């Protein structure tokens, strides 16, 4: 495939490299609580995020996007794999070694209501990371809190209010301010806009973009909103049933999706242009997502794929490199098959 997509600026070492990350949650059954299997929430995913870019991570509910994000931030203990942040594998760090790394990576949560302690004032919520990682005077800390509130567009007089006194969009700004408090390099945005009104979504997304420009942030933007990801991300990764099925630069992925699942996802995005919308052909997938505790043999998508053939049900397709950083896990994308 000739690579028409803009070549990505590649640093020698990306900010974050995830290699073969697995996050399995054990299932215990019976009287003796024997281990009966595992929910393979994230099963062997590999990708990297370069400094300053936004990697969109999309997929339907339950495909393991949030788990992947949390495992990368080491909120979970990954089952296997490596998470290399700035050249250092953090996948199995413990205790203080992990704690001192926390300021570099932060998270913005999906539900701004649930992610703020209802019994703390906005000031103390935003100051919590500062309390934990810096030894500042009270005045310096307060100045920093005000600065952060200004940066995310919150009125600084709100410092003494409680989360329930705010609207959803404002609460999300509080969460963003907290995430920014320690000048992180890498932020996992776990569906930060999914719980917000459409009008507020735009504000928050614009805020995230502005902050990225000003502070040189790197985002892992987890979302199921494909149009928002198209707006925000520089590269997009698609997950299905705990596996990475396709990853490519934004234009490549939206214009020439290689994996049938990606094609189906993109065909479901409505277009605001009525002429294009009238011609849009939806690929409707049938059936349900298989259980991640009992995935089908072969390709995980083989049970629902409209272009499935025999090989898919036996062999698991690897991520084929299609050039220009475009990779897809489908036999149809196999270079040999394409040549034939």
């Amino acid at each position, binding site marked *: 495939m000739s690579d028409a997509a803009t070549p990505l600026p590649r640093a020698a070492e990306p900010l974050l490299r995830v290699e073969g990350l697995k996050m399995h949650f054990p299932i215990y059954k019976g009287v003796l609580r024997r281990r009966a299997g595992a929910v393979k929430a994230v099963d062997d995913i590999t990708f990297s995020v370069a400094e300053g870019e936004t990697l969109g991570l999309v997929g339907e509910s339950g495909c393991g996007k949030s788990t992947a994000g949390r495992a990368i931030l080491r909120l979970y203990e990954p089952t296997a794999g490596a998470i290399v942040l700035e050249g250092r594998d953090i996948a199995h760090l413990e205790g203080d070694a992990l704690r001192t790394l926390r300021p570099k990576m932060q*998270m913005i*949560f999906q539900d701004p209501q649930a*992610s703020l302690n209802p019994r703390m*004032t906005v000031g103390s919520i935003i100051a919590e990371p500062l309390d934990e*990682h810096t030894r500042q005077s009270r005045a310096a800390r307060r100045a920093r809190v005000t600065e952060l509130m200004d940066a995310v567009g919150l009125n600084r007089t709100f410092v003494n209010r409680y989360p329930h006194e705010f609207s959803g969009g404002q609460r999300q700004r509080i969460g963003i301010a907290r995430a920014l408090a320690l000048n992180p390099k890498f932020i996992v945005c776990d569906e930060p806009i999914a719980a917000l009104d459409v009008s507020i979504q735009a504000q928050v997304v614009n805020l995230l973009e502005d902050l990225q420009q000003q502070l040189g942030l790197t985002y892992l933007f987890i979302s199921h909103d494909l149009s928002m990801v198209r707006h925000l991300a520089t590269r997009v990764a698609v997950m299905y049933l705990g596996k990475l099925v396709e990853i490519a630069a934004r234009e490549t992925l939206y214009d020439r999706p290689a994996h049938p699942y990606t094609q189906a996802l993109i065909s479901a995005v409505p277009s605001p242009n009525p002429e294009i919308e009238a011609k849009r052909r939806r690929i409707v997938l049938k059936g349900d997502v298989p259980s991640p505790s009992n995935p089908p043999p072969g390709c995980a998508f083989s049970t629902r794929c409209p272009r499935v053939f025999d090989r898919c049900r036996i062999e698991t397709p690897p991520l084929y490199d299609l050039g220009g950083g475009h990779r897809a896990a489908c036999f149809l994308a196999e270079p040999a098959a394409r040549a034939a």
Partner: protein
Amino acid sequence: MSDASVGAPQIDAPQRSLWSDVWVAFRRHRGAMLGVVIFTAIVLCVVFGPMVYGTDPQFIDVRARNAPPSLVHPMGTDNIGRDIFAQVLQGGRVSMLVGVVAMLISLVIGTLIGVLAGYFRRLDGPLMRMTDLFLALPLLPLLLVAIMLFRDTLRVLFGPEAGIFLLIVFLIGITSWMQTARIVRGDVLALKEREFVLAAKSIGTPSRRIILRHILPNVLSPIMVSATIGVAGAIITESALSFLGLGFPPDFPTWGRLLYDGKDFMTLTPARVLWPGLAISLTVLSINFVGDGLRDALDPRIRGR
């Protein structure tokens, strides 16, 4: 960082602390203030009452046995002519002290075990089985055995009254924390999955500070409720022990003891059960009000309404 920055103007209001807010809201809570007034009044009465009201609770006025309330004996006398008012005042000291101290002990144990079991999955099994074990123990026989075993040692060490007080308070405390532990554990289990706890983890807050900062303030309501119930329970348990002859010495009045002594004379002198009973009820009620007010004041969503 961004536009607004170095040398930011002073924020108009200083950072409010949780406790100053709670105090302001508590002051505004009418029921709570009523509870505080009643409770303080009872405390003042039992602390200073015996000094002001000169009658000795042990003084036997033989000519005025089973006397109805009069000016000399405001609450009447018992069957051997002791002044009931003096006994209620004197008995309140021990009863209130037992109630409050035993409640504090059981609260501390119950909260500690509940939080540890709820927060640390590894401790959950052992701690909760221990709670079940304590719940399954027949309480009264256990107390009786413990008192039989340790009474004399403690009496020698601390004197007859202080010794039995320590023993009773300790025993009631360590046999009444189970409900609190279970309720707290349940709440902690739900709370620790909330995203703000996850956010604290992603910040790198260590477990002990997550518990202190995020978990404990959010489980205060059930703790408050079990505290108020605990005071009443401790007063009643103490009276049951006294009734069985294993609490304080028989001539040492407590509210529970007065109740039990008076119950046989209920038809003759109803005042004998009425006044100690009223004292217990008022104490428990006022503590309930205070607990209610505290719970409301500690919840920012209710505060200020």
